[in-house]
């Protein structure tokens, strides 16, 4: 039995990590379908952002209570998984708590810490479930989350509670040891089960726990929970310039330069393919990484002036739509080797003109995002495509453009009157 269990365990471990690695590589390929952008300057500042924003969850602390609960779940999740080392070694070699003897008292200290964290994580997850399903906070009942996203959020919390429960049960049923939280359940277990049954309970909990962790790991790539991984690179590649700065378009800068100073124009200049983005693949890889990083928390949409006054725009939905689109494109490429047009584009089919038109570029969404996602960047790229590729602008904007062109002001005033205020 022992050897078979060890073989099953090894196969399961290899399979889980193998599939997970494959999925992560596929997401990496999807992200790299985006256009090149160079975000490698000032590494010191970037690492500082990783420490403050991702590791330290600095922005989360604008809502302190939620931040503490979130930090508990996060720290608990990461630290309790140190125990995974022992579980994997035990699983491979058929040992039982291999580190307990060599580490002695420190082992008890570690597991006690894990157990306290497990209890805190469970409490935090229950609070989160209550916030989402009973209190129904505004940003969680939004129509952005209809269907899968809402279930996803609940699944994550339920799975975490189950995993913590299994971890505690496994320790409680093991009466050779005694740990701070689980020992409270041991008397009840010993009263209801005999020695043999207890061993079975412990083994079952052990297996379910590790299978659950492997399953959860492979669930990550389909879930908003992926932010636990991507928050780190996303913080590293966060823009380091004032958020009011829009990306320059060197192609257009040069076209204007060559029009004004024809002697500067190279003879073999290649015409740019397109301006702005109508498709997800025309966005930068950072925009796409943003989309995969999004935890759908809705802080952006909550702060959006357009959304809060009933307009169609929701920055969170911009991110979710971008992720949906790039996933569809990625699957299409996987099935067909190359992308076979499906008659849809990010612009129009996933994100409508009305949504884009409602944005005031106020940067509230960008400022709110705890992990440095910019919905505004995507909105601007899509607006660029609308206006420059499709000549799709409201009449008032076209008037504004022609006023700027002819009168050097967005209104139809004579440029000669620009200094008239000095005379009045």
């Amino acid at each position, binding site marked *: 039995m022992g050897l078979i269990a060890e073989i099953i365990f090894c196969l399961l471990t290899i399979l889980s990590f193998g599939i997970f690695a494959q999925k992560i590589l596929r997401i990496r390929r999807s992200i790299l379908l985006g256009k090149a952008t160079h975000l490698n300057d000032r590494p010191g500042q970037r690492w500082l952002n990783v420490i403050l924003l991702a590791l330290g969850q600095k922005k989360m602390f604008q809502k302190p209570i939620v931040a503490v609960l979130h930090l508990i779940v996060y720290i608990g999740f990461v630290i309790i998984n140190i125990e995974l080392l022992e579980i994997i070694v035990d699983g491979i070699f058929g040992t039982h708590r291999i580190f307990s003897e060599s580490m002695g008292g420190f082992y008890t200290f570690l597991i006690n810490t894990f157990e306290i964290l497990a209890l805190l994580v469970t409490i935090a997850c229950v609070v989160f479930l209550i916030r989402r399903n009973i209190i129904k906070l505004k940003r969680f009942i939004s129509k952005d989350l209809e269907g899968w996203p809402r279930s996803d959020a609940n699944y994550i919390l339920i799975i975490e509670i189950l995993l913590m429960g299994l971890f505690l049960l496994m320790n409680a049923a093991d009466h050779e040891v005694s740990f701070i939280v689980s020992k409270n359940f041991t008397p009840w277990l010993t009263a209801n089960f005999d020695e043999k049954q207890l061993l079975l309970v412990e083994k079952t909990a052990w297996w379910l726990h590790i299978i659950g962790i492997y399953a959860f790991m492979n669930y990550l790539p389909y879930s908003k929970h992926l932010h636990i991984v991507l928050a780190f690179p996303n913080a590293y590649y966060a823009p380091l310039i*004032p*958020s*009011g*700065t*829009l990306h*320059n*378009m060197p192609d*257009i800068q040069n*076209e*204007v*330069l060559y029009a004004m100073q024809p002697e500067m124009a190279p003879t073999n200049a290649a015409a740019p393919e397109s*301006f*702005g983005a109508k498709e997800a693949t025309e966005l930068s890889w950072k925009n796409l990484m943003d989309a995969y990083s999004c935890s759908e928390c809705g802080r952006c949409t909550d*702060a959006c*002036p*357009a959304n*809060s*006054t*009933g*307009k*169609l725009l929701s920055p969170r939905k911009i991110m979710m739509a971008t992720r949906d689109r790039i996933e569809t494109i990625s699957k299409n490429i996987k099935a067909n080797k190359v992308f076979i047009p499906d008659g849809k584009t990010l612009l129009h089919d996933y994100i409508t003109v009305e949504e884009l*038109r*409602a944005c*005031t*570029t*106020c*940067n*509230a969404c*960008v*400022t709110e995002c705890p992990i440095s996602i910019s919905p505004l960047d995507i909105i*601007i790229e899509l*607006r*660029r*495509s609308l*206006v*420059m590729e499709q000549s799709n*602008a*409201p009449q*008032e*904007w076209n*008037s*504004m*453009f022609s006023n*700027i*062109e002819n009168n*050097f*002001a*967005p*209104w139809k*005033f004579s*440029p*000669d*009157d*620009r*200094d*008239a*205020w*000095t*005379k*009045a």
Partner: protein
Amino acid sequence: MKVSTMAEMMASGEQPEILFWVGCAGSFDQRAQKITKAFATILNKAGVKYAILGKEEACTGDPARRAGNEFMFQMMAYQNIQILNGYNIKKIVTTCPHCFNTLKNEYPVLGGNYDVIHHTQFLQELIEQGKIKFTDSNEWKGKSITYHDSCYLGRANEIYEAPRKVLESLDMELKEMKRCKSKGLCCGAGGAQMFKEEEKGEKRINTERAEEARATATDFVASACPFCNTMLSDGLKVAENKNDPAVLDIAEIIAQAIK
């Protein structure tokens, strides 16, 4: 009002210490012209040697760029940078946060490198240096005021303190709106919204913001952006409430208190 243009300064072989970038709203919009004049008055009284571009100034391209028209933006940026560099401009002050943001953050990559400050920062400097002195009968003293953060000054460039410091220097009682500083609610004009009808929704953004301003029950609402000023004034007008606070630019408030 005597305001020199760069061309005039050039002709007499002078160089101003700072260029006052007036902006389109400040130049043409009747309400915003008052802000421009107030700020020019302050500069005159504080003895600042400044100039404007006059007829040579043109839209920075901000609304075109944010609407998606990068060509138009690049055209304007090219022209403006040619002129600014031609006059060897080093320092610029502007009363418009949109011009401020574009000149400061978006022109450098295009070859326009200037030290750009917003008028609230400049006012703070002048007050700290003692170049602005207030009259003994400071009529603002003790009056309550709420300050509306402009998105392009606040979140976009993280300037939250300068405008507040200026108001506090007048011994005004500053009350914050429910959403302020980095959480400040937009007036609804940014991103070229100023130049089109709002998309359909339940409410206008400026109405929402005007309600927040009214809820502070202050005597005045301070703005530091000509567009915010228009939007908030309109938002308050909708209610037609005689007791509603007047919306004033920080420059207008200082201009009335200056010696």
